């Protein structure tokens, strides 16, 4: 066991996979310049030293190329692990992700495949609208992509290793305030926990129950899972018992765990930092109303970022992003229905 933050857990996953498989390589802007940062969040710092700069590529600022090079090299058997600094720049490579990576296997009739990993830091951290987005909703909508969002160091390592071994394009959303690396951000949460030093993977499509409860099922990912847990603690004192589920991967999505929980609670709350309209919570909410509406004793509740670009001013940002207070309040209302 080692004590690792998410940033370090991701690094150890990538490094272990690079040791295991010579076809794994990583690339990105400022990926690992000696004296530099290791991406924007230290994850890839030091990899160049161990693996050399032919396997740790510092790329130009060319997102179309970055993604396209992943697609092309992956089709030839390589396993690229790319880093994007900020998920917001996914839009600069969107064609390569949606029209190319996601469709290549299908369009070829299953003859080629694209085992690539695209790492996208996400979440609001006082940097303004173009460095703040939670982008899950865009990519869960794309058949052919897998979408994962680890929120603990243990998950980060196990899911990242699985992502690298997966034979399909995988988008990894990593929350900036959960890296838990030294460069502490305001409101950042320490994610340093014990992580096995040996090889393990976490299967996609298996949610984790972070807290058991019997009144409300709260499904929340990334930072929002922590806020939900904080809210659950407060609510417990009021006699409201929340089961908090972390989906961990959004495509594939583990509906079963949510349904099993709803069988106990009859009440569903979905919390995400991605904005409300057409976020991944909409899919979950609607899916439940399609397949298990009779499990529901009350309306579904979605707590999400308001439908606005993320504002810079801390007071505004705090207001737009779901807070534990908002979760608590919504839970109280939900129990009154």
């Amino acid at each position: 066991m080692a004590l690792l933050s998410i940033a370090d857990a991701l690094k150890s996953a990538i490094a272990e996979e690079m040791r295991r498989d010579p076809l794994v390589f990583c690339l990105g802007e400022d990926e690992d310049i000696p004296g530099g940062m290791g991406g924007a969040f230290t994850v890839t710092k030091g990899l160049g030293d161990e693996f050399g700069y032919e396997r740790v590529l510092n790329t130009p600022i060319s997102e179309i190329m970055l993604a396209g090079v992943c697609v092309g090299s992956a089709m030839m058997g390589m396993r690229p692990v790319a880093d994007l600094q900020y998920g917001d720049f996914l839009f600069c490579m969107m064609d390569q992700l949606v029209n190319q990576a996601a469709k290549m296997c299908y369009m070829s009739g299953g003859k080629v495949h694209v085992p690539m990993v695209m790492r996208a830091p996400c979440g609001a951290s006082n940097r303004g609208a173009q460095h703040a987005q939670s982008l899950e909703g865009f990519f869960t909508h794309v058949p052919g992509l897998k979408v994962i969002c680890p929120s603990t160091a243990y998950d980060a390592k196990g899911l990242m290793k699985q992502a690298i071994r997966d034979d399909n394009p995988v988008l990894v959303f990593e929350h900036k305030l959960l890296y838990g690396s030294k460069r502490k951000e305001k409101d950042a949460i320490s994610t340093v926990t014990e992580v096995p030093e040996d090889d393990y993977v976490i299967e996609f499509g298996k949610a984790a129950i972070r807290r058991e409860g019997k009144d409300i099922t709260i499904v929340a990912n990334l930072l929002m899972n922590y806020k939900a847990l904080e809210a659950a603690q407060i609510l417990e004192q009021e006699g409201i018992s929340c089961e908090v589920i972390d989906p961990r991967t959004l495509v594939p999505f583990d509906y079963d765990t949510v349904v099993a929980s709803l069988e106990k609670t009859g009440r569903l709350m979905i919390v995400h930092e991605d904005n409300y309209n057409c976020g991944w919570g909409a899919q979950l909410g609607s899916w439940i109303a399609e397949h298990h509406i009779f499990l529901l004793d009350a309306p579904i509740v979605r707590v999400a970022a308001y439908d606005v670009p993320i504002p810079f001013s801390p007071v505004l940002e705090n207001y737009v992003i779901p807070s534990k207070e908002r979760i608590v309040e919504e839970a109280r209302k939900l129990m009154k229905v």
Partner: protein
Amino acid sequence: MSKLPDKERALGMYQRMSLIRKYEERIYYLFLEGIMPGTIHQSTGQEACAVGMLYDLRTDDHMASTHRPAGHDLAKGVSLKSMMCEMFGKDEGCCRGKGGAMHTGDIEVGALVANAIVGGNLPIAAGVALAYKMQKKDNVIVCFFGDGATNEGAFHESMNAAAIWKLPVIYVCENNLYSATTSIAITCNMQNPAADRAVAYAIPSEIVDGNDVLKVNEAATRAIKRARSGEGPTIIELKTYRHGGHSRNDACQYRPKDEEKHWFDHDPVKNFRDYLITNKLATEEEVEKIDNNIEADIDEAVEYAQHAPFPQIESALTDVYWEGK
């Protein structure tokens, strides 16, 4: 003046060019008849580009094509039957009916799935070349694109990456003077939209008569040698012209008649045929025999494809994610 090729090579090239020509003509006819679904971008008139560039690639080398892929695919060796089946949306199509006319290709013979996003194949080709390099292979990839594609951001980013990493990729611009209905002259200040921009990346470039298969082939030979020996990418701009409209729906009324005449007179297939005969590399009869064999093959392929089964509809739901081999 190109050096005379040996007879076998010459006839080999002619065979491929004639195959492409006749294939495209037949497809055109099948569309006219209304028996072929979708739309099509044909390469009639650009046969020398495909054949000259690809004739000397190995099967394990790769080729990346565009929305106008048939010539490239046939020149790289995708089977006629599997192409024709794909056009009809049949299960035995080279993409099992899931790709279609803009996505033909067969990785088994080194033809990537063709790319219908203008410029979309350029960074992917760089990635393929990067994989060769990392795997210490001496392969090369030929990546085709049109004059219009040179105005895409993807062009710029791909050229730059190929240059700085010295990738074994040959970027081939088939400059047919138009992107769809738009003359390249109004969307770009350069006489040679690909070659004139090569300096911006410090990539060597060549400008070649794209309707002369031997000249194209010579440029290909130089570029392949550079790439295989680790000297990096080359940009080749081929001057050519499509004989038909941009796509099935284009009546092609925006091109000056004298421009069309000039280029139609400079027909790559007909001229090469004449060249073979004039230079006694082949007799009229030999060439005719090749042509007749091709016609027969095409007849057979069409017949086969028309009667081949459609995919099971449930197969629509497979291959979204890889299912292993």
